[in-house]
Structure formats: C-alpha cells, structure tokens
C-alpha cells in the first residue's frame, strides 16, 4: 500500500465510464488547492482515464495509482491533487 497523504476519499466502486472521472471532477471542485482526493473504482478503464484527465486538465495532478484486492475484486485507487 502506498503511503500517499490524502484529504478525502471518493468511492465510485461499481460505477462505469464516465462516472468515476465525472464524480471525481465534481469532488475536486469542493477541495482547496493542494488537497488530495483518493478515488476508489472498480472500472478497469479508470487507470487510463485518470491519466488522461490529469494530462488534459490544468487544475489537477495525478500523484499515484495503485491496485488493491478486496474480496477477490480488483479496486483501482487514484490519488488526485487539486493544483489550482
């Protein structure tokens, strides 16, 4: 497990594209600059999606991504920082 510091967690488990990114975008809007959001997802496509979001959006940075296993299901964890 990564030891990235985070300020809030968003659970998008069970949700499919594009909802993890859309919900994360909404949640990031509520954060202060510099704060980090941890997003949990079961969507395999979310790995590339969060990379794509961070590449295009000017106000977020993707700090880390990891995969955890929960009851046999893979959970994809993304750490996104609001930069401006």
């Amino acid at each position, binding site marked *: 497990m990564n030891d990235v510091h985070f300020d809030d967690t968003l659970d998008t488990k069970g949700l499919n594209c*594009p909802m993890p990114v859309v919900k994360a975008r909404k949640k990031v809007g509520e954060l202060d600059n510099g704060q980090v959001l941890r997003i949990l997802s079961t969507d395999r496509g979310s790995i590339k*999606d969060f*990379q*794509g*979001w961070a590449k*295009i959006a000017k106000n977020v940075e993707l700090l880390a991504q990891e995969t955890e296993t929960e009851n046999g299901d893979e959970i994809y964890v993304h750490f996104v920082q609001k930069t401006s």
Partner: protein
Amino acid sequence: MSVSDVTSGDKTVTLEMLQEQLLTLEQRVEQVEESLPEDKIALIVFSGELDKVLAAFVIANGAAALGQEVSMFFTFWGLNVLKKKGSLAGKSVFQKMMSVMSPDTTTELPVSKMNYFGVGAKMLRKMMQDKNVDSLEDMIAMSREMGVTMLACEMSRDVMGINDDELVEGLERAGVAAFLAESLRSRTNLFI
C-alpha cells in the same frame, strides 16, 4: 533614467518593464505550444461492418505511414473487430443473445449494405482480392506492426459482456477520458 532605458514620446520604458513583458510573453508562448495539436490522429471505431472498418484501417495505416501517431478507440459494435473467438461463459441471457448474433471473428463481419446474410461480405472480399487490396485481417496486422494504439472501451465491453479471452491481446483498456486525452491533442478525429 539609466542608459538602457528608452524614451518614446512621453513614455519611458525601463529595462525592468521589458523583462517583465518578455517573461509574460514566454509564458503565453509556452501555453500556446502546449495546446497545439501534435502529429496525431484519433479514430473512434463504433461500427462493426466490414466496409466501414476497412475504411478505418486504410486511414490508420495511411496515417501511420505518414508518420502520424495513431490511436483507435473501439466501442460498441467496433469491439467485434477485436474478437478472436466467441464464448458464452459467464454471460447474461441478453448478452448471450447478442453474442450469438454477433460475429466471432473479423472474417464474419457483415457489410453495411447489400449483405444478404453474409454473401455481400464474401463478394466484397473477393472483389478486393481481385484488385490486390489487402484483406481486413492483413490491414489490422499491418497497423499493429506500425505501432497503432488500440484502445478497447471498457464500458461497452462490460455492457455487452464480451469476455477478455474473446478479445485479441495487446489492447489498452480505457474510457472516454483516456480517449479524449488522445483526441484533444490530435489534428484529425474521425468517428467511423
């Protein structure tokens, strides 16, 4: 007033002001450069019909030959283009129905017009062969050789219940944000 300052009309421009302006300009140029499209092309392959998919791969191979970075995003019927076999394992009733009615490999793809239960597709393949046009399968192999990136839409794969072992290897699993990251930096975007 120092030596390096310039007076034009009644305005004095100091070196400091110029340096500041230069810095602002440099930052703006950097922003503009970042937002310029790259030598890229992004294709959405939504259709699963031989003629349309052929068009997509002719363009993909052509663009790769011209030195463009090509990414193809396969979604809905387009996923049938990536299938190497059919399987009913672990599928719901509707997914099974869809699976049975869908092509198991590219060789079973129909044509969008005059298909006549597959006769049209066979005819088109024969006509292409007669004119020395590569088959769809050759074109797909060529595009992989040319380094074309193939992204499979995870959401539509999940909805249609297409299993991983039904799809060819070497695909990237992605969603709309991953595709947009490619397409927003591309000069050309096509929805086929």
